[in-house]
């Protein structure tokens, strides 16, 4: 941290803000609507896929209406799948808003972000409404419950998904997998670093 010389300064205004994410759903926007499940087992699943493999195609309902299919991006966009465990919980509630201001990064690398959880559509709708307008599709893996998460090997024993990121290239091949400690938010630079490799 830089040292600041205090000579001649009468008052300092410190502003605590968040760009993207915390363990607490810190934004005042959420007020008392965040359910804190406490510290969880960092990982609770066994991955079924590997870097270099093709992702099984999927079609999931979108909060924005209709379905989104992985295949629709084939040959056009790199795809970043951001799985979060549960709506209205800490970390998750700051993670996606953070990606919201990072749209130029995704555009720069010809990438689309798909936010996915095993919550149902009405829950995701109410929760993401608090975030303002999201530029990326939000998809529900609710029914059959966690089917996509299960195929990928990131469905936890309590029916939520891991906090996992997959980066899939335009040919549908997995280029990066991060099954992150569920209690922590993956930093934005991890996605940037991996997208840069696709250029």
């Amino acid at each position, binding site marked *: *941290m*830089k040292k*600041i010389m*205090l000579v*001649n*300064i*009468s*008052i*300092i*205004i*410190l*502003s*605590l*803000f*968040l*760009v*993207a*994410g*915390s*363990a*607490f759903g*810190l*934004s*005042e926007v959420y007020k008392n609507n965040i359910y804190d499940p406490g510290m969880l087992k960092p990982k609770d699943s066994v991955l079924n896929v590997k870097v270099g493999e093709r992702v099984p195609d999927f079609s999931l309902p979108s909060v924005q209406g209709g379905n989104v299919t992985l295949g629709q991006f084939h040959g056009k966009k790199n795809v970043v799948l951001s799985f979060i465990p549960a709506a209205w919980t800490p970390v998750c509630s*700051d993670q996606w808003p*953070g990606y919201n*201001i*990072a749209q*130029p*990064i995704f555009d720069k690398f010809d990438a689309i972000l798909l936010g996915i959880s095993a919550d149902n559509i009405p829950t995701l709708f109410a929760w993401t409404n608090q975030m303002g307008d999201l530029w990326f599709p939000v998809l529900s893996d609710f029914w059959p419950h966690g089917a996509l998460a299960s195929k990928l090997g990131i469905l936890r024993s309590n029916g939520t998904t891991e906090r996992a990121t997959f980066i899939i290239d335009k040919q549908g091949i997995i280029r990066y997998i991060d099954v992150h400690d569920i209690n922590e*938010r993956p*930093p*934005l*630079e991890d996605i*940037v670093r991996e997208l840069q490799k696709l250029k």
Partner: protein
Amino acid sequence: MYQIIESNPDTKGKVKLIGIGAGNSPFEVNYFSETYKIPFPLFDDKHYEIHEMVGMVRTPYFFVVKINKDGTHKLTYTQLGGFKTPEEFLDLILKESGLR
């Protein structure tokens, strides 16, 4: 508010703004700063050390610290949440700090 502070000879050089990104990495804070062209210093608090020190507050949260002539300091005002206009907020904190 930064522009107001810097354009007023009564506050320029006397009032400083610092931003702290609770839980944010240096990359994220830098990205935010460049995206929104923030003219004042921003600091990362990736491991919530500062956030914990100040009581794990919600955000945005403002602390106004008055620096006394003898180098001691005093917390003169705190606020959770944003403000209506920068002019009103600056006026309020200057009054609370005894500078207006």
